[in-house]
């Protein structure tokens, strides 16, 4: 056990490491290289923030990393003066001198403590990985609500802390897809903040809106009034009425001088002449030229996307602690299962059927308590193989009319139709034994803990409610 130092001191082994209250702070100077690999050995990072460009680089490297040892690391800025949003949302505090570590210590300690709650698994998809990262970051910083910030450098015009940092400007629209998935999975709730229009070609949010010629898209045009001379019905552009001698307007048809607008003439419309192609038109086309890929978008065809403020839900926090492995989309790809939606619908029909007949159907739930631990020991590919394997084995043991779905990556629901409860219970127990055996043979030191329960399907309650009641103990 290390001595707990009560004064701020420089480490004996490394002069860029400061020790205080049992924690080690690694200082990155702005004359350093951009490598940040060493930070995993220390509790927190202090960036000497004289050069904003350099500071942004370092923050991007740390927060954009895929290893929680990097992206969750507490980061403090020293002497920061010029750093503006959105990077300010990715740091955990600022110091004007190293002495101030004392002041900021409690919050750093708190972050480190909360990180200890979290389980990290390898995710089934890139999307799941970013989701895991987001909920872990929000949990560890105790952030309930995350507000996007207007950002000139963002590809979609808004920067989402911890989400946007994972994507290049070009790919940043993916953030919106991830938020959509997180909402569908009920990890977050969202509330409207703003709308943005994105380029159809590259999804960038930076566009220049111009009025252009509908024929050649040039914005090089001159406009003039159309004049209607009432007495003779002559109508034409105002140039027809001009002369070279004076400012009077004379009608080219009847030679009269225009006197009084509204009395002997009016200007019912305008006309534009394109100086690029000579086309004459009344209505401009409004086009949005993408400043990223130069694609000229029709404004009506621009994709409208909503920017939301997001709040983490209870489920989101639980998933951060238990380890988030997969999105339901990933699970849908496992053969032999159906989507949860489909499962719910089929159960609804089963309830209806039971109202008409005397049949007996059952609903079983299997929940792997330490799934985070199990998943964390597997690579993504191995996880997929294992799940496929597991489902195939389960299917061998149950009637073909049974339906299987993943409620979450650790919870499986099985609808066992037209069976007495006793048999359904026995079958479920068989499955538990099978799963335990499968995990124990593959993961030597792991203690398997599978909860399960079987209930007859009631024809008095809705299918959805029966599912809720069955799984509520596990969430």
């Amino acid at each position, binding site marked *: 056990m290390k001595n707990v130092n009560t004064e701020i001191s420089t480490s004996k082994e490394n002069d860029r490491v400061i020790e205080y209250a049992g924690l080690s702070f690694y200082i990155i100077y702005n004359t350093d290289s951009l490598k940040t690999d060493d930070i995993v050995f220390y509790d927190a990072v202090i960036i000497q923030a004289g050069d904003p460009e350099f500071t942004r680089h370092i923050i991007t490297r740390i927060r954009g990393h895929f290893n929680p040892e990097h992206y969750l690391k507490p980061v403090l800025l020293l002497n920061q003066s010029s750093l503006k949003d959105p990077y300010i949302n990715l740091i955990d505090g600022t110091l004007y001198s190293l002495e101030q570590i004392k002041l900021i210590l409690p919050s750093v300690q708190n972050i480190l403590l909360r990180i200890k709650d979290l389980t990290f698994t390898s995710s089934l998809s890139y999307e799941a990985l970013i989701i895991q990262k987001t909920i872990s970051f929000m949990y560890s910083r105790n952030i309930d609500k995350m507000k996007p910030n207007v950002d000139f450098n963002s590809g979609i015009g808004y920067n989402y802390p911890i989400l946007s940092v994972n994507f290049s400007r070009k790919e940043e629209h993916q953030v919106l897809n991830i938020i959509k998935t997180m909402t569908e999975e009920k990890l977050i709730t969202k509330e409207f903040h703003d709308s943005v229009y994105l380029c159809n070609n590259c999804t960038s949010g930076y566009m220049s809106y111009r009025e252009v010629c509908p024929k050649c898209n040039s914005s090089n045009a001159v406009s003039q009034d159309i004049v209607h001379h009432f007495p003779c019905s002559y109508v034409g*552009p105002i140039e027809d009425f001009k002369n070279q001698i004076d400012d009077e307007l004379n009608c080219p048809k009847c030679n009269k001088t225009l006197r009084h607008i509204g009395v*002997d003439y009016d200007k019912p419309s305008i006309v534009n002449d394109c100086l690029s192609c000579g086309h004459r038109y009344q209505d401009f086309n409004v086009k949005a030229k993408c400043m990223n890929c130069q694609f000229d978008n029709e404004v009506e065809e621009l994709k409208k996307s909503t920017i939301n403020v997001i709040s983490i839900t209870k489920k989101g926090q639980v998933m951060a602690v238990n380890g988030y492995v997969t999105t339901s989309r990933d699970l849908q790809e496992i053969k032999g299962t159906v989507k949860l939606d489909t499962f719910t619908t089929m159960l609804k029909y089963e309830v209806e059927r039971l109202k008409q007949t005397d049949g007996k159907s059952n609903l079983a739930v299997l929940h792997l308590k330490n799934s985070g631990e199990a998943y964390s020991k597997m690579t993504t590919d191995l996880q997929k193989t294992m799940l496929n394997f597991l489902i195939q084995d389960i299917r061998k043991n149950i009637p073909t009319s049974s339906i299987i779905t993943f409620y979450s990556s650790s919870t499986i629901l099985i609808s066992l139709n037209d069976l007495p409860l006793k048999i359904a219970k026995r079958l479920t127990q068989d499955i538990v034994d099978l799963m335990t055996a499968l995990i124990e043979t593959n993961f030597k030191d792991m203690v398997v803990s599978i909860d399960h329960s079987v209930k007859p399907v009631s024809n008095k309650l809705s299918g959805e409610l029966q599912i809720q009641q069955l799984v509520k103990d596990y969430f």
Partner: protein
Amino acid sequence: MSTIGEFISYIQALGPAKFLRVFWFFVIFEFFRYFLLDLVGLILHRVSLWVNRKKWKRASEQLKKENPLVSIIVPGKNEGKHIFKLVKSLSEQTYQNYELIIIDDGSDDNTPIICKSLLKNGLIDQFYRNDVRGGKASAANLGLRFTKGKFIIHLDADCSYDNDAVEKIILPFYYDKDIGGVGGNVMVRNYKESLVTTLQAVEYFNSVGIGRIVTSQFGIYRIISGAFGAFRADVMDKIQGWDIGPGLDGDITVKIRKSGYKIHFAPEAVCLTSVPNTFKKLAKQRYRWDKSLIRFRLRKHKDVLFPNQGFSLINFISFFENILYNLILNFKWYFYAIDLVINFPDLLVHIMLTNLFLYTTMGYIKLILFGWFRTRSNAPNYYFLPYIPLMVIYFGYFLRFVRTRAYFMELFFKASYNDPWNPLKTSVHAKEKGL
């Protein structure tokens, strides 16, 4: 029963002198002008076609070789719903080198939205909209100002056209270099819709389909329908487009004639139009049209009737024929009726029955004989057979009374200047200048 017996003996007793004394109106008006003269005109037209067949063929070759750009202008208010059908029907034309220009004269429905979308999709070439209505002439002139073609065709949005109509209406310009304007053959599309549309179909068949072949043959054809007319762009430039209406179709025809050009009727350039489907709507339409005879023939262009610098005998005859048969004889009919009442009070019923018989017989002869001269018809002749007797009432009474009222109102009250068909801002100027 005895009246019929009396009537038959009355007919039998009629000698030629007595017949003329009592039925002179029928003889000059219907028999001489609208049967004999028409028949002669039709025969001459046939002969002329045959004699000049090589010239017509050369004209057709010349047109195909030159393939000039034709500008089609369609002015209108709240016509959006017809535009797409019009565009589709034009795309079927045998003549394809045209530009389509739509002018929206202050529509207050979804016309601008429809037209802008058609413009965007390249289905129309130019679209102009005036937010405030300026009247038909100004809308047509706006379109005209931006045309690029060698020939201008003026269309109504709610009409439809035979596939070769554009080609057929342009062709006469290549036949005779002096032709400045060509009128198309307007037929009634909704002839089955109601009694009044059927009667109008018969009327159009006589007055347009036959009547205009004849007047064109005699060189006195005087009205190019707004629904379908073609003009030489250089001539339009010279006469500076349309003047304020109503009746601007007839007006522009006169203007072309006065600048020394011929007007031609193209019977094969067929356009189908929907005519008013109730007597009330028809009366309103005719009231407007008939007023313009007074306004344009007797007022604006009265110089045609007097020997002066630009006097042209053929234009004089064209006007004179129009005034004689429409205006003078229209009023003369009342003298005829009074004459009968005073001098033959006992025989009124017999005379009326005889007139009915004479007009109906004439109607059948014309339907069958003139039908023979038609190259293209939109309805089978037999369809109209039961309606011929009604034409006497339609033509002899209904239209006559509408016309009388129109002439009277225009002659004494200049009613056309108050017609809401034109925006007030333009009407006040027309009235002030006597246009």
